[in-house]
């Protein structure tokens, strides 16, 4: 299974990757993108199975990425890993087609719980 991690912070991409390994997802293939635009290109080329995306990024935000994907009828499983966890944003994410929403700071257990619902 291919997991795409999207975050404009290299440090955070590394932390997400490490937490995924600690949560038992280390056998999966990881790739990274620094913003929504880069992610969109990678998704077109590599068709990942799951996308974990930050919300607030330059060039293209996470919600813009998700909206673009659903607009082109791409049904890749998509979740947010973001520092902003307000009810309004969670609702907007769900409405746009997100499968899960994890708030930073997160634990490996939180990622495991979120991903277990979308990875069979």
């Amino acid at each position, binding site marked *: 299974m291919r997991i795409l991690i999207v975050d404009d*912070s290299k*440090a955070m991409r590394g*932390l997400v990757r*490490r937490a995924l390994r600690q949560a038992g997802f280390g056998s999966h293939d990881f790739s990274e993108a620094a913003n929504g635009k880069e992610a969109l290109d990678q998704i077109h080329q590599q068709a990942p199975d799951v996308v974990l995306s930050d919300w*607030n990024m*330059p060039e293209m935000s996470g919600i813009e990425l998700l909206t673009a994907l659903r607009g082109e009828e791409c049904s890749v499983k998509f979740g947010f890993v973001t520092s902003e*966890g307000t*009810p309004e944003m969670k609702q907007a994410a769900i409405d746009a087609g997100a499968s899960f929403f994890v708030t*930073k*700071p997160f634990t490996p257990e939180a990622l495991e719980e979120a991903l277990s619902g979308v990875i069979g």
Partner: protein
Amino acid sequence: MTPVALADEWAAAAAAVTGELSESMLGLGEHEVLGPVERPDRELCGAYLPMHTTEGALYVGILSDTSGIRALANALLGEDLDAEIAEPELIDAVGEVANIVGGQMKSQVPNGGTAQLGLPIFAWKPVETPSGAQQRALRLRLGSVNATIVVVSPAPSTLFKKE
């Protein structure tokens, strides 16, 4: 809300969230709010996060001296606090700390949920407070790291430039 009240409210939230974060995710140990200062020392550097709230624009800064900033970056990365770290990684990591603090602050302040975060900006010296703006600075001890939280309201529009 006046810029004074806005700065007070968000500064208190920033200090509380930074303290909690230092004990949890950063693993720095117990924190303590040491009290307000008129302005941050000129030697301090750190990351600023612009925010648009329903009450006005502001920015939040997390500042320390160079060894403290290195410690904060290393703490996020799970490294020894005094480990060598390249400048781009330091700037990226401290910006992410500011980003997490900003996100958490939104749930600490009434009507904060609708605030919009900008992108973090790193500065090697404290950003000058614009004429007429209100600044609040609070000194914190985060484990062994001394830090200063700064909130300025209203924020200069140049901080909201889309990268």
